[in-house]
Structures are given as C-alpha cells and as structure tokens.
C-alpha cells in the first residue's frame, strides 16, 4: 500500500470514528427522556415560555432536520451555542481542555516513568517474591475506588501534613514563575491518584510481554553470545515489550480524557470530565455534543500517533 493510500485510509477511519461518536451522542440526547427547557427554567415558568425555549434551541424541529442542520453546522466548524451559558460551545470547552490535557499527560508520563522499572523488575524476577509484590501492588491500585483514595490523600497530605493544597488547579493571585509552581503543586495529588489507578495495567502488560520476549530466539541467541542479562533485558527485550504497552496507552488516552470525572470531582480540578458531568445535569445538548466530538478527536489522534510510534518501535518493521 502506498503511503498516500495509507494516509487516506487512516483519515477515512478517523472521520468515520468522529461521525459515529457525534451521531451516537446526538441520538442518545434526543431519544432518551429529559427536557432542556425544564432544566434551565425556574419551576414557576409557564408552558408558553417552555415552548419558546424549545423553539430557540431548535428542538421543536423533526429529528432528521435537526440532525442534518447539526451536521451542516459542524462541517462549517460551528459547534453551536451553549443552552445555559449563552456562549459558543468551543469557548466553554477550550477553557477546560488544557487542564485535562495537563492532568492526563502528566499522569501518563508518571505511569511510564514508574511503570517501566517496575515491569522490568517483575519480569526479571518472575515467579519470585518481588514479582508477586509488583503484581499485587499493580492490581490493588487498579481496584481502588478513586473518590475514597482521593479523599484519603486530601485528608492526609492536604489537611494533616499540609504538603499539598486542597482542590483547584492553581492559587488565585499568583503570577509568573510563582504561578507555574502553584500549578505543579496543585497537580501532585490528582496526578498521583490517576497514576495509581492506571499503573497496574501498564506494569502487568509490560511484565507479560517482557517474559515472552525473554524466551524469544533472539534473546537466547544474545545470551549465547555472552551479552549481559541486564543489557538483554533493558535493550533488547524491553524494546519489544514496549509495543503492547504503547498500544495500551493509546487505548487508555480516550478513556482517560473523559474518564477523569471522579478524580476531577474529588480534587475540584477544572477539567473536561467534570464539565461533561455538569452539562449532563443541565442537559446542555450543544456542550455535550461538542465535548464528545472533542473526545472522539482525541482518540483518533491518539490512535494515529500510537500506530506510528508502533511502527517506529517495532524492530521487525525496521529490519525489512
């Protein structure tokens, strides 16, 4: 396949994915019960006002017409206007997106930084006590209920020890370098709890593939050639083992960006996940549609990058 055809296929897949997400959201919002006009107005509102609001929102039109209008607007890059905030959806989302990106990326980086040594450790001592300890630690982290661990962290590190601030993404009234320090300081606890939860699957995947790789022919060959065990582990086997682990990260990204709702709630972090939850409670259709569109785009981007990194890491592809 030529590179152009590959790119075209990728692009087609991406567009299809985004269309699918957008359509599912659109239909779910309109086919499930829930009336946005009731969500925004006070209970003393009359029926006429409600009808007027529905007309303003364009929800009085037939479903098909609404859908086509929505797609047409989307193609022109118009995500619509928030029902409740009277401002463009893009503005609503762009205020929150940076914080989610910061939180998820820092958690991913930390996961890899901690996960690689742990995975290597477990694989090199497979069957031993350390291996089991790493496995149990990983699975335990994965099985924790985020809000409970979040409140515990806040109580211990925030209130009792005063190591970390409680809630928010930065302190009000800090500027310049102070501000960046404040951002880092506020990031510590939410990042830690996210990392704890996702570390397990990364370490376990890495461990399993490392164990497989260590039994491969070329490792046996390398051993026979007298290469040190440490060099084999870190250089040759790890390179192969990183592949599935990388795929996993790509898969996780989509989960993470939207899935940090509970983390963001407990740590009062101003990200997209919490924004989605609030839009659900307000039945703000345009914001929800916009948010799901963005999440789908993130997934597409992540998958593309993962595929490319995969090709770059895979020695077999390189060798050919």
């Amino acid at each position, binding site marked *: 396949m030529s590179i152009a055809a590959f790119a075209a296929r990728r692009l087609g897949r991406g567009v*299809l*994915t985004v269309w*699918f*997400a957008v359509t*599912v*959201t659109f239909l*779910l*919002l309109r086919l*499930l*019960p*829930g009336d946005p006009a009731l969500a925004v107005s006070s209970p003393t509102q009359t029926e006429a006002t409600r009808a007027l609001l529905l007309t303003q929102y364009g929800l009085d039109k037939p479903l098909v017409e609404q859908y086509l209008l929505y797609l047409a607007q989307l193609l022109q890059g118009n995500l619509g206007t928030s029902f409740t905030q009277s401002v463009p959806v893009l503005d609503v989302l762009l205020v929150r997106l940076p914080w989610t990106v910061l939180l998820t990326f820092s958690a991913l980086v930390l996961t890899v930084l901690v996960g690689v040594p742990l995975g290597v450790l477990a694989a090199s001592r*497979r*069957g031993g006590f350390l*291996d089991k300890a790493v*496995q*149990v630690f990983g*699975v*335990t982290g*994965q*099985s*924790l*209920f985020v*809000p*409970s*661990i979040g*409140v*515990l962290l806040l*109580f211990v590190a925030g209130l009792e020890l005063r190591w970390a601030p409680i809630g928010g993404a930065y302190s009000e009234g800090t500027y310049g370098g102070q501000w960046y320090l404040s951002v880092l300081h506020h990031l510590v606890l939410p990042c830690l709890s996210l990392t704890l939860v*996702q570390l397990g*699957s*990364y370490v*376990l*995947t890495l*461990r*399993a*593939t490392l*164990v*497989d790789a260590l039994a491969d022919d070329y490792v046996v060959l390398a051993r026979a050639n007298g290469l040190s065990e440490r060099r084999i582990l870190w250089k040759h086997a790890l390179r192969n083992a990183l592949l*599935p682990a990388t*795929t*996993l990260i790509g*898969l*996780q990204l*989509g*989960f*993470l960006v939207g*899935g940090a*709702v*509970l983390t963001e*709630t407990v740590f009062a972090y101003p990200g997209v*996940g919490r924004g*989605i*939850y609030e839009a*659900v*409670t307000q039945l703000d259709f345009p914001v*929800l549609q916009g948010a*799901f569109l963005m999440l*789908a785009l993130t997934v*597409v981007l992540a*998958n593309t990058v993962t595929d490319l990194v995969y090709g770059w890491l895979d020695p077999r592809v390189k060798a050919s």
Partner: protein
Amino acid sequence: MSAPLPEVVLGGVPVAPPAGGARRAGASTWRAYRRQPLGMAALVLLGLLVLVAVAGPWVVPAPASYGTDVLVAPGAGYLFGTDALGRDVLAEVVHGTRQSVLVAAAASAIAIVVGTLVAVVGAYVPWLDAVVSVVVDLTLSLPVLPLMILVAALAGPSTTTLVLVVAAFSWPEVTRLVRSQALTVVGLAYVDAARLMTRDHAWIIGRHVVPAVTPVIVVSVVVTASRAVLSAAGLAFLGLGDPTSWSWGRILYEAQSAGAMVSAWWLTLFPSLAILALVLSATLVSIAYNDARNPRTAGPA
C-alpha cells in the same frame, strides 16, 4: 472509573485442543492453579464474597430505615458503625454485596453472551467479520464513562439501567478479545475438516469454535465483572445508582452527600474495602488462571 484492563490478563492463552482433550487440559490447569498461593488466596476471597452475596442477607437482617444511634464509630455494638440515619453499616455492606455482585454478574453475563456471539459468528462468516470489526472499533473509541453517565442520567437510575449500561459498553471489548482467538481457531485444519463433513454451521460453532475460545471467555467474565463493579460504584457515587436497593456505591454516595466521608471514616472505609476485595480477588484469579494455563508467563515453578 476503571482503566482498560491489561491485555496480559487475556493474552497468551493457548488454543485449546479440540473437544476431546478439554477435560484433561482442565484438570492439569487446576493442578497448576493450586500450586499458586496467591491465586488460591484470591479464589478463597472471591468465594467468600460470593458466599456473603448469596447467604449474607439471610444471616444479617436488612438495614432499618432509620435508627436511634447516629454515626456511631465501629465497636462492640456495631461492628462497622452506623451512618447518619443510625443504620447499621455492616447490614448495608452485606446487603450491598448482593446487589453489587448481582450487577457485576448480570452485566458481564450479557456482555459475554453478546460479545462472544458477535465475535464467533463474525469469525466464522468472513463477510460479517469486516462489519463486526468496524463496529467494534468504533464502539471502542467512544468515551465510555461519560456516555455511561449520560445514559444513566437520562434513562433514570435503577439496577436494570445500571446493568444494561455497563453491559452495553463492555461487549465490544469482549468481542475484540474473543474474535482474535476465534479467528485463529477457524483457520485451523480441524475446523476446515468439520466444514467438509457437515453443513450444520451451528454445530461446528458449538462443537469446535466455542470450546476453543472458552478460556478467553472465562477470563473475560472475571475482567468484565470486576470492571462492572467499579463502573456501577462510580455511577452510584455520582448519584446515578439505584436509590432503593443497597449497593456499595450507594453507601459511599450517601456518605459523600452527607459530607461525612472524612469525619465518619467507617462509612468510606468498609464499602471501599469491599470493592477493593472483589476487584482485586477477581483480577488475581484471572491472572493465576492464565499462568496456570500457560506456565511460561508464571516463570520457573
């Protein structure tokens, strides 16, 4: 709520030999499994939890609608303490176990049945497989948790909603995993041979394909169930759980909305421990099961 579970839990399961050897393979797997202390401990813990879910509610009476001893710390009178309405937390946890296990079991059962069916049929019928693979990929790329929140909020919180929502967003994962396994099997010689012998496709699928993917299914059940526990608890925590029956998530939600998660730590601790115990033991069991089937990953025995 939960990150996608590791591929490793499902990876590396060798293709089972055709029907006849299955029982022998099962016995040897069990022998290998029994040699793993961690796996056995997890299995015992899991068994205990299921026992509590099944028998607990007969032993411990249902939580009253209110009591006089409000927010009593754990002690002699109340082993797990009482909540803001004076209800016994132990009773809530025990009755919550049944609901939580039920949601997990029902959601994973639906997801497994649907997921496996789609995967196996897809693998067996090539033209369908292309469709299946696209649909699965598309569904997998949806942001699951926000969608679960959306559907649960709009459809109205109840145990049924919870089960269906979790199942609806779990089956594609199952399909993906089972499909790759099924594709290998369908390509094998004995299935081709079977195709020559009979035109009864259902028979072939039932006789050869399904048994071969059973190990993957067994592990999928555990993985999907434990994810269902976390998802259900998370939804309940956001106020989207069933308000009329006790679940671990509901205990946590009530502690949260009463602002009592810190001051009445026992309201947070016990249901969280229950969640941890169930998910942890289920995942460890599936890892141990895999190691038992495929000794290479377990390391020198």
